[in-house]
């Protein structure tokens, strides 16, 4: 039985001048561009992208979801996953195509979805329940179950602005999951909770599916997707790259991630500076030579090759390392304010030996010049370490990182 059916779904955003919010500015812009056209030039501003100032976040999406499926939506940052969820939750509307949904939709798109900070946990439960269309009686029935699942019974009469982000997301998830929607949509909020909570949520999502409801789940954590989802949808640049069985989708996703030394497509990056700072290559070196896979017991270097299309007073590049969806480390290429001249650049990060363990890490790359001026590319490349444990046994090498520590023991007396 079909629960969600999408045909030719597409969403276009217009960028640039259209995006001013002030009538006064709009009129000013209008005058300026009119004057500019009189003088034979186009509207003031940066060089346009090929298709004008338009950006298709989603294009030509066709897919179907049956009752009881758990659909995992995967893809790089900027692939369109969140936009798709927003459309399915009716927060934003498609530019073309349509979607047919059967049943009530409960969405968790961010931490504290729909919570009002001044209201207490109790009041917010009723507010959220009402938003989902429940009557007060229905909410009252489920109230105790919700607070028990979220483990916030003691705090239910405190304003939620005092809650930690973990409590927020526990409560938000508890409300959405217990109010029995036909379709439950969850967007990576689980990254905020601790491991125990994540396990609980996955368990609950599995229960929800077994009860015959449908779950849509966006995550970067491949092991979650592998364990929970019955079906997967891989998005790339707003289009469906693959839909079907989970193992194949995950494999296709990994295949698409660049290897060391590959040219990085600029389509990976989003942000206001994405046409002013271009990062085109990421290279890993060990022992002075390029290496596609690395030995974890030796020092290594990560180099970003790129080009700045203009001079920046300050510009800082960063590399973020992820493993299994967990953010392991962040590294920055300049400790203090440093200017970036127009032209090519190479940022080198020299990394210590014996800290990261064997396995696969994913690298995200970003750059920022000031608040609001940034670029970001998630899942830009994979960093692979060979299985070299330095002769140590499994018990001695647990954990994602090996800390460079020393220890000693004193026995007094």
């Amino acid at each position, binding site marked *: 039985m079909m629960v969600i059916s999408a045909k030719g779904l597409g969403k276009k*955003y217009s960028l640039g001048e259209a995006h001013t*919010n002030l009538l006064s500015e709009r009129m000013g812009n209008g005058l300026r561009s009119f004057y500019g056209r009189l003088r034979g030039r186009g509207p003031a501003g940066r060089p346009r992208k090929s298709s004008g100032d338009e950006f298709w976040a989603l294009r030509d999406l066709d897919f179907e979801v049956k009752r009881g499926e758990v659909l995992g939506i995967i893809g790089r940052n900027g692939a369109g996953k969140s936009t798709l969820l927003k459309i399915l939750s009716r927060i934003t509307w498609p530019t073309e195509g349509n979607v*047919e949904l*059967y049943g*009530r939709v409960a969405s968790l798109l961010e931490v504290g979805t729909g919570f009002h900070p001044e209201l207490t946990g109790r009041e917010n439960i009723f507010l959220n329940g009402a938003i989902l269309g429940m009557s007060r009686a229905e909410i009252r029935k489920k109230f105790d179950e919700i607070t028990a699942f979220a483990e916030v019974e003691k705090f239910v009469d405190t304003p939620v602005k005092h809650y930690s982000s973990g409590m927020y997301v526990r409560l938000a998830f508890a409300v959405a999951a217990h109010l029995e929607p036909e379709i439950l949509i969850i967007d990576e909020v689980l990254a905020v909770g601790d491991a125990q909570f994540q396990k609980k949520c996955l368990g609950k999502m599995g229960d929800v599916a077994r009860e015959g409801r449908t779950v849509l789940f966006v995550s970067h954590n491949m092991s979650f997707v592998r364990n929970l989802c019955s079906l997967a949808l891989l998005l790339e640049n707003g289009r469906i790259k693959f839909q079907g069985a989970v193992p194949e989708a995950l494999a296709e996703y990994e295949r698409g991630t660049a290897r060391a030394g590959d040219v990085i497509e600029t389509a990976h990056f989003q942000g206001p500076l994405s046409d002013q700072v271009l990062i085109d290559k990421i290279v890993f070196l060990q022992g002075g030579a390029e290496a596609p896979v690395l030995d974890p017991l030796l020092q290594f270097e990560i180099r970003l090759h790129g080009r700045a299309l203009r001079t920046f007073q300050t510009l800082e590049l960063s590399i973020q390392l992820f493993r299994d969806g967990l953010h392991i480390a962040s590294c920055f290429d300049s400790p203090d304010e440093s200017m970036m001249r127009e032209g090519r650049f190479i940022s080198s990060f020299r990394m210590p030996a014996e800290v990261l363990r064997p396995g696969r890490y994913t690298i995200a790359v970003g750059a920022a010049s000031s608040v609001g001026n940034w670029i970001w590319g998630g899942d830009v490349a994979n960093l692979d370490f060979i299985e070299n444990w330095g002769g140590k046994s499994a018990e001695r090498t647990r954990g994602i990182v090996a800390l460079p520590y020393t220890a000693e023991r004193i026995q007094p007396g």
Partner: protein
Amino acid sequence: MTEDPKETYFSHTHKTVIKPAKGLMSLDLGEVWAYRELLSILAWRDISIMYKQSIIGIGWVIIQPVMTMIIFTIIFGKFAKLPSEGIPYPIFTYCALLPWSYFARSLSGSSNSLVGSSHLITKVYFPRLVIPFSKVFSGLVDFAIAFVILIGMMVWYRIMPTRGIFFLPLLLLVAMTASLGIGLWLTALNVKYRDVQFVVPFLVQFWMYASPVAYSAGIVPEKWRWLYGLNPMVGVIEGFRWALLGKSVPDAGMMLVSFCIVFAVLVGGLYYFKKMERSFADIV
């Protein structure tokens, strides 16, 4: 045939179709009714937040119209000696200040209501009409308090209510409709053009002088009265005066024009709001 909208919208067999907007869309007021619990919760939330935070909160609701009445009485009643149809000026102007304050407060509240609820709008679905609707209702508490003062004043001036008083609920409804109608336009415009919220206080000031608050509509020359009636608040205010003070029946033509404008503004506002609704989350 008459299914409870709640059953329709929230059942597991309800089909929702999500597609791009084309032309004039249906207002889907049934959906707003289905979400009425949310409406009442939002209205209560507004009221409780307003009163939780300010110590003079409740006092301000009384102080503002009373102070305005005192100032008007001194300036327009005593100095300018504006005619008040034989009724003591203070209560003459207070009867108008009652619906006017409700209207003015609704306008100021609603113009920023969507932007102020951006944390809800960008994350959850519910028919966005619920927000301006809830503002119209939450303003009623202030109205009720100011009304109690009016009753006190009527006792003081020994004014007996006439049968016009039975029209009061209807007139209140018109006042709510006018507030909602203008509120919808302002709210929708403010999301797109953020400077609207700065224009509103000025607009409200000017509007008050264009409405028969400090003076009677009777001083407007007859041939211009229909034009004067284009102001939606004219019908409401003159109606309130007539219902409470029982003096001369106001110009029927002018009232009719005013009420029609109220209705037209509401319908226009609903359609404009619906049209803009889809882009709210993208630009708020």
